[in-house]
């Protein structure tokens, strides 16, 4: 249980600004994913919240109380790193007990908390194992138990599953959700993996170039991107140039209504899976193109359609098209995201 509030947080390494003016609130018992490409400064935010890195300016409040002056060991946060970082000279049980020992919790109450956490993380019977005898997934579960046993207000997770294989990662996400339901711990989860962010969290915050671009429920940031960069980050890579006049976006061969203000240079973006292909009708003024590439990717295949206005990327299930075939393209109006072009970098 805990609330976190970051206000105008700016972090610098020397002269380089890594995070600028970050504002973020976490509600009690919420899981928020901080999503962004590698090097966007996500881990830096976590370290600042944990007290391991002094921010340049701005403030951090935990449960409404300013925490800026507190050193890492006295903040009510625990950071779970990418690597399990278990203490090799302690066994599993001693590792989990480490934080309680450091904070002076002893006796039956401490014992009980440890046992409860061992049960929640499914580590029963492994207490006396040495840490190098555990598998990667077990090690990360010990790391989780070691952090959670302290019952921190905020649990900070820094890509904790990125070194695990796909199946284990899925199990760990489930575990995080289960733990969250049982302990109601507020979690700030950092990841570069979209599906992980969507699968784990209540809300997603997208960090690009050290700035927070959009915060909201997973479906919202995915389907209603706030700007061109956000749309691109989520794989919306088809860009149709045009302009906005009288409440309509006018492209080379598309015309869709929009609420945006008039603008001479604008773009409409569409996700590759939203583009529809149909057999070309000769003489039609609808956009047409030739299939110039088919790449099988498992559930979906990625087709490249070369049109007069450039290549369009299309994701399609079991495509029945062939290389070189002439196809018609349809851009459903409700799937096009229109942005003023000035936003694009």
């Amino acid at each position, binding site marked *: 249980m805990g609330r976190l509030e970051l206000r105008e947080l700016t972090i610098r390494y020397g002269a380089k600004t890594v995070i600028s003016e970050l504002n973020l609130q976490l509600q009690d018992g919420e899981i928020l994913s901080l999503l962004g490409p590698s090097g966007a400064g996500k881990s830096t935010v976590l370290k600042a919240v944990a007290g391991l890195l002094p921010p340049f300016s701005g403030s951090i409040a935990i449960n409404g109380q300013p925490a800026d002056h507190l050193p890492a*060991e006295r903040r009510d946060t625990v950071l779970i790193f990418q690597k399990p*970082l278990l*203490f090799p*000279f302690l066994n599993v049980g001693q590792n989990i007990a*480490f934080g309680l020992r450091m904070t002076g919790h002893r006796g039956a109450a401490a014992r009980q908390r440890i046992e409860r956490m061992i049960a929640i993380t499914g580590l029963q019977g492994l207490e006396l194992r040495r840490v190098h005898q555990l598998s990667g997934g077990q090690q990360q579960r010990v790391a989780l138990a070691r952090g959670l046993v*302290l019952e921190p207000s905020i649990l900070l997770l820094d890509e904790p599953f990125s070194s695990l294989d796909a199946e284990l990662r899925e199990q760990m996400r489930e575990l995080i959700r289960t733990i969250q339901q049982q302990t109601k711990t507020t979690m700030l989860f950092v990841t570069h993996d979209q599906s992980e962010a969507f699968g784990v969290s209540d809300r997603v915050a997208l960090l690009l170039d050290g700035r927070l671009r959009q915060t909201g429920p997973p479906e919202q940031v995915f389907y209603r991107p706030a700007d061109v960069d956000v749309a691109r980050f989520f794989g919306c890579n088809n860009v149709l140039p045009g302009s906005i006049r009288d409440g309509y976006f006018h492209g080379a061969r598309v015309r869709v209504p929009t609420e945006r203000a008039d603008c001479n240079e604008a773009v409409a973006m569409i996700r590759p899976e939203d583009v529809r292909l149909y057999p070309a009708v000769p003489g039609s003024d609808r956009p047409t193109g030739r299939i110039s590439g088919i790449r099988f990717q498992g559930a979906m295949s990625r087709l490249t359609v070369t049109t007069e206005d450039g290549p369009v990327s299309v994701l399609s299930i079991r495509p029945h098209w062939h290389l070189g075939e002439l196809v018609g393209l349809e851009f459903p109006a409700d799937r096009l995201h229109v942005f003023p072009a000035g936003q694009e970098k």
Partner: protein
Amino acid sequence: MNGRGRLLFWTIVLSVGMPFVPLLLWSFSERWFFPALWPQDFGLRAWGYVFTTAGSQILGGLTTSCLLALTTAAISLLVGIPAGRALGLYNFPGKRLVALVLIMPIIVPPLAVAMGLHLWFIRLGLAETFAGVVLIHLTFCVPYAIFVLWGVFSDYNPEIEEQARTLGASAGRVVWSVMLPMILPGVTVAALFSFLLSWSQYLSTLIIGGGKLLTLPILLFALMDSGDRPVAAAVSLVFVVPAFVALVASARSIGRRGLQGVR
């Protein structure tokens, strides 16, 4: 143990044990003259001399040597751990120069180092004192300790300390409950190096100590000069025992976990 294992085992036993065979024979011999291959008479005269007649002198030598070696090892660690950490974890200008300076007392002949420093030590009133001898031993021991711990810290991930901090460990407890246990095997090796190096110093102890500090090697050389071979052999064996004990004791802590925990 298979054939090759047995071969390896006996090769090691032989190569380590061979030098001690003549020592053992000499220490238990009464008469052993050329060209006999074997002592003509066995007896306990030498050991009797070591434990009774010269007993207090040798016990004094043992105590002095032990105190010297322990003090030197302790100070080597106190200097070596922070220095090794700085060299292993951080990059700073002049790091290569530091390595060169560190290796100097090792590559410059110890005689020259000891002679040169002797003049300084006389002026500073350190000659013929325990502190002076500790200092001259440190010039040889500290570089080794730093090199060992430099290597240890090159493989050390300081994130584990950040992890400990967020788990509620204060800076002091991070050093005591995380860093030291993590680098324990390396610390043991460094301590052992320093101890053994100090333990076997003769020349530097003689020059700086000026005969006032009677360590075991000093006594041993005196006995060898006197020409009493059985007694010299017995004292040599006494000299080996503490070093051997130190080695075996530390081998347990090195072997139990090895250096794996450092990674």
